[in-house]
């Protein structure tokens, strides 16, 4: 494929060329992604630790995330399955945009990047919807000690939904980790959409046509696939297990 150029290992490190056969920009995008992946790895490992510690009282995801738009029934996993599909789909459109860029096909890049941005926005919107239902909670609620600022004491009352210190689903750590990890991931998705949009405008303006290569599309593509990669793990550890 693209990088099929063979290198002579004796010559590779003697200067004047990249032994990795990569431009600086792409190489450092990779290094950035490794550091970001370490952050997410650390978060997920600590999530696993806390979840294991409170294994007996940890809520089951299939009891918490049961909503689906316009459907009254309890449908565990269906909504998050849809979100996963949207993100994988937008990952494919991104890689097709990169491929079109390698053929210097501006129309193709514009088309596929447009669908990538649409997919990204759909995912962020889905996550907002999921958070909304998580925060609002169920009609039943559960008994919790809730801090009352007026009397400066904890009052036992029926509590609906979730915030950082109290939630109806179970241990507070569940909501904390849910908010933090999906929130951190959602921030990445949102910034990815913004970056994709900026590059999309540049593609429309013909910046990369003049430059002679579409490597910027490839670099934001790497970031976008990384976001998808993280979601694969979040999906498993939060919703499936």
């Amino acid at each position: 494929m693209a990088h099929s150029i063979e290198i002579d290992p004796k010559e590779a490190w003697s200067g004047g060329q990249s032994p990795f056969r990569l431009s600086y920009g792409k190489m450092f995008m990779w290094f950035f992604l490794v550091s970001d992946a370490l952050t997410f790895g650390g978060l997920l490992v600590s999530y696993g630790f806390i979840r294991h510690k409170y294994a007996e009282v940890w809520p089951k995801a299939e009891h918490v995330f049961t909503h689906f738009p316009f459907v009254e029934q309890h449908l565990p996993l269906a909504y998050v399955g849809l979100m996963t599909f949207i993100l994988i789909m937008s990952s494919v459109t991104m890689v097709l945009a990169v491929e079109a860029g390698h053929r210097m096909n501006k129309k193709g890049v514009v088309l596929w990047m447009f669908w990538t941005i649409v997919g990204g926005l759909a995912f962020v919107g889905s996550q907002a919807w999921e958070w909304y239902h998580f925060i609002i909670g169920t009609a039943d609620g559960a008994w919790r000690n809730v801090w009352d600022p007026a009397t400066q004491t904890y009052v036992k009352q029926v509590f609906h939904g979730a915030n950082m210190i109290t939630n109806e689903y179970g241990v507070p750590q569940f909501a904390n980790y849910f908010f933090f990890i999906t929130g951190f991931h959602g921030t990445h998705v949102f910034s990815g959409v913004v970056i994709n949009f900026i590059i999309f405008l540049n593609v429309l303006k013909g910046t990369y046509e003049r430059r002679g290569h579409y490597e910027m599309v490839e670099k934001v593509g790497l970031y976008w696939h990384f976001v998808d990669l993280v979601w694969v793990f979040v999906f498993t550890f939060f919703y499936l297990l």
Partner: protein
Amino acid sequence: MSDFHDNYPHYEVMSNHGEEEGKKSRRTLWNVFWIMLAITIFELVIGFMAPSHGWSGTLWLKTLFISLTVVKAAAIVMWFMHLKHEVSFFKYAILAPYIIFMLYTIFIILTEGTYAGSSGHLTRVDKIFIEQQAQLKQGHHASTDAHHEGHDSNTRH
């Protein structure tokens, strides 16, 4: 093309390819997508069936889900992110440090973290937590729904 007037090779341009090669790589990418979609649907079906079949939380189910996740992650990194086609030295420069470090982190949390659940190392908050669980088990439920069992750790006296 470059703002720098040196003799550094233009790797950005070298990665361009023709129509023929494009067709081939598109076919590969779509195949990867269908495999990933099939894995995800399979995971969802198993996850959907798990509670009624009593599979939830079993070791084999966890192993299955985690290994399928690793397969999907490898597909994304190798084909979508193109790492498979980079120079192999670069491939290992990216993968090796990350994999070694993450395996170490998982190892250390599994060995050094075991104290957290043992009764000899309870923190102040844990004691309150256990006490409240015992109280709740005696019955202070808002709902009769089994999955809304209250577990409360918010009292900090």
